[in-house]
């Protein structure tokens, strides 16, 4: 099941006869492409039928799938969380968020003409995101304590408030520098997360630097800046001189279109750097994630979505479904026709399947396959330590499946 890679062979001296060389064996993480479609179809249908309540069990099933099929040295990771825990965590999160929401609404409505909007803004744009940030960190703790490899559990130390503190500190600096130090914000948060991650007795260590990220980040930053400036200049030219600045406009548009690509490029380089800077008790990681492949997955995904939508429209046209505008307002019911509903449902399911199988799973597989683990033998020195369990609070805000991010 695994593909052993020999990385150091050329740097090592030839082994003395009769003695095994002390090579630190390195292993690649291997993504196993097990069948997924039925899980997605069942989960989506049940989620709709239960007005969304099944989604906790669906999400758990998806995690089990991704964890189980991420394998190292032939053994898969394990997700031991349950849907019930997510459901209870969601109820607890509701109990925290609903009063806040009510508070914002009431203060905004009845707080007076001046004070009300100010208080509502403070609550809505500072307190709420802060609470969410704390819950995000707790959600990560939940996922880690439910992750095992070879029977030994991960866990997370640190506090949500500590994470919030780092976020606020670097956010202020990022705003003051108009976003230029954003990679440092990312690195600070990643560092806090990794150094508080434990695999049994092995604590995570993080020594990635932000400086190598600056090139790809500044590329994105200047691209966005120039696109914005060009747009302003061309619109001013059009409105004041009435001149035809089509070239300028097209240039600005091209730059705007390039921004998402630059963002994905940055994230890929960041992923390589952060994974490469991570180690656990002498076991170190490296990633050779290919930026072109990731960008292609994104492009292909949007092309597929557009294709499905167009396909459904064309198919509907061939089947003779014509959009009818009711002549009589009482005739609204006649617009909803059975073939139309079936077609829309089919297109919807195709999009859901595309999103999970051809997009999310593909990105997961690329990321997993890019990771090399060096010195797997150091696992021998790791023992399970008592790490307290965490309940699933904050899970309501958690949608990602990143296992190495």
């Amino acid at each position: 099941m695994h593909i052993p890679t020999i990385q150091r062979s050329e740097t090592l001296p030839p082994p003395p006869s009769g003695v095994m060389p002390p090579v630190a064996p390195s292993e690649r993480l291997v993504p196993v492409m097990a069948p997924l479609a039925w899980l997605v179809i069942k989960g989506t249908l049940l989620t709709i039928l239960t007005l969304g309540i099944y989604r906790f069990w669906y999400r758990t099933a998806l995690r089990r799938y991704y964890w189980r099929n991420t394998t190292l040295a032939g053994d898969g990771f394990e997700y031991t969380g349950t849907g019930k825990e997510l459901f209870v965590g969601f109820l607890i999160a509701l109990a925290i968020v609903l009063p806040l929401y009510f508070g914002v609404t009431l203060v905004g409505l009845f707080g007076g003409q001046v004070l009300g909007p100010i208080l509502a803004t403070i609550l809505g744009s500072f307190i709420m995101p802060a609470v969410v940030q704390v819950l995000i960190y707790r959600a990560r703790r939940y996922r880690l304590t439910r992750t095992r490899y070879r029977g030994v559990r991960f866990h997370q130390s640190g506090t949500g408030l500590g994470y919030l503190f780092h976020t606020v500190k670097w956010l202020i600096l990022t705003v003051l520098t108009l976003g230029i130090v954003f990679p440092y914000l990312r690195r600070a948060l990643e560092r806090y997360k990794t150094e508080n991650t434990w695999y049994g007795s092995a604590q995570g260590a993080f020594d990635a630097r932000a400086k190598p990220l600056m090139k790809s980040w500044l590329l994105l930053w200047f691209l966005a800046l120039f696109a914005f400036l060009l747009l302003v200049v061309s619109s001013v030219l059009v409105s004041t001189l009435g001149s035809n600045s089509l070239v300028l406009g097209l240039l600005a548009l091209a730059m705007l279109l390039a921004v998402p690509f630059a963002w994905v490029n940055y994230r890929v380089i960041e992923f390589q750097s952060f994974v490469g800077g991570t180690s656990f008790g002498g076991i170190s990681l490296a990633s050779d994630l290919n930026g072109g492949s990731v960008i292609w997955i994104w492009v292909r995904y949007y092309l597929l979505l557009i294709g499905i939508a167009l396909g459904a429209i064309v198919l509907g046209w061939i089947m003779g479904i014509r959009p009818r505008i009711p002549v009589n307002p009482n005739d609204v019911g006649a617009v909803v026709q059975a073939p139309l509903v079936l077609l829309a449902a089919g297109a919807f399911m195709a999009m859901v399947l595309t999103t999970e199988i051809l997009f999310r799973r593909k990105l997961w597989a690329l990321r997993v396959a890019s990771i090399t683990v060096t010195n797997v033998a150091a696992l021998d020195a790791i023992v399970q330590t008592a790490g307290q369990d965490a309940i699933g609070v904050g899970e309501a805000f958690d949608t990602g499946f990143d296992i190495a991010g």
Partner: protein
Amino acid sequence: MDILARYFDGVRPVAQAVTLRRVAAGLEIVLPDGRAPILWPYAEARIDALTPEVQLHRVRQNLDTGERLIASAEAFQREFGSMLASFGRGRAGEAGAMRIALWCALAVASLAFLFFVGLPVLARVAAPMVPWRWEAALGRSVEPQVLEYFSKEKDKPIAFCGGEASAGTAALQAMVSRLSAGANLPAPVRVDVLDTPMTNAFALPGGRIFIFRPIIDKAMSPDEVAGVLAHEIGHVVHRDAMRGLIHNGALSLLIGAVLGDITGGSTIAILSKMMLGSAYSRETESEADRVSVDLMRRAGADPRAINDFFRRISPLGNATPTIFDALSSHPVTSERIAAVEALAAAIPKGGKPILEAQEWAALKAICAQTVKPAKEAP
């Protein structure tokens, strides 16, 4: 026959080569170097996968011990194939499929109860508890936005009909006070006629009522206008604007929180909101109709006049309720017309009109003179 397997003890992430043996109580793990064998009772042994390799984990006293077993699929099937039903199920702390189904059903039922019963009751109980001062403040803060919404030209604010001392305004005030006399109002209502082309009337929070010009233009008698006005006063009496705010706010909160992130669920959310919202507003409309009949009777005017008016302006002459009625938030249905007829049945026909002839003439001409809305009314 013994099966070769890899065993993880839950303490160190290192595989131990062991043999598995089937015993009466369960599954026995024979360790290599003569250590005592470990027994996993069937109930504690949980199967995670049967292919490509068999994977087992152990749950004791509802806790995952971290112990794991990995064995070849064929050998395991040969030895334990007949015992698969005896193995325990699921992860530690996991609920069975039946229980999940039960919870989902209960959750859906309680949501339905909340939507159909809980929220309307909440709105009905909570609205009167909001201090009238707050409601009035709320009304004042939304009034400019509402006026802007209804003004046809963007740059020109909507005009109010009648001046401070005009005869039309006096006639309108006379009608208001004659109707209000019988009403149980928390504070006097303030009524204005708006110079717009739409046929409409509504009540904002805080007893602010607007009647649109075409209502007066199209009315054949003062009682028709009074019927519409009394209906809006009914909304104020029941504090329907406040109720609607509470109801809608809580509803969108619930829909957002519960249906929140289902993929594609927003369609269901919008549809259910329309259905529920209209069921709710149909109820408040009939309640306001009841007040309208009552106030008209007390003022000695004809409660049936509003029906004549509706029949004249409504393009929907048909008698059967349609799906459109079920979705419309402000339906003028034959249902409502019939209900008003029934309520007014005991009241003798041909009462005295609510306005004298010259008052009615003045009201008809109220929009001959218009003023810009005052910045802030007390």
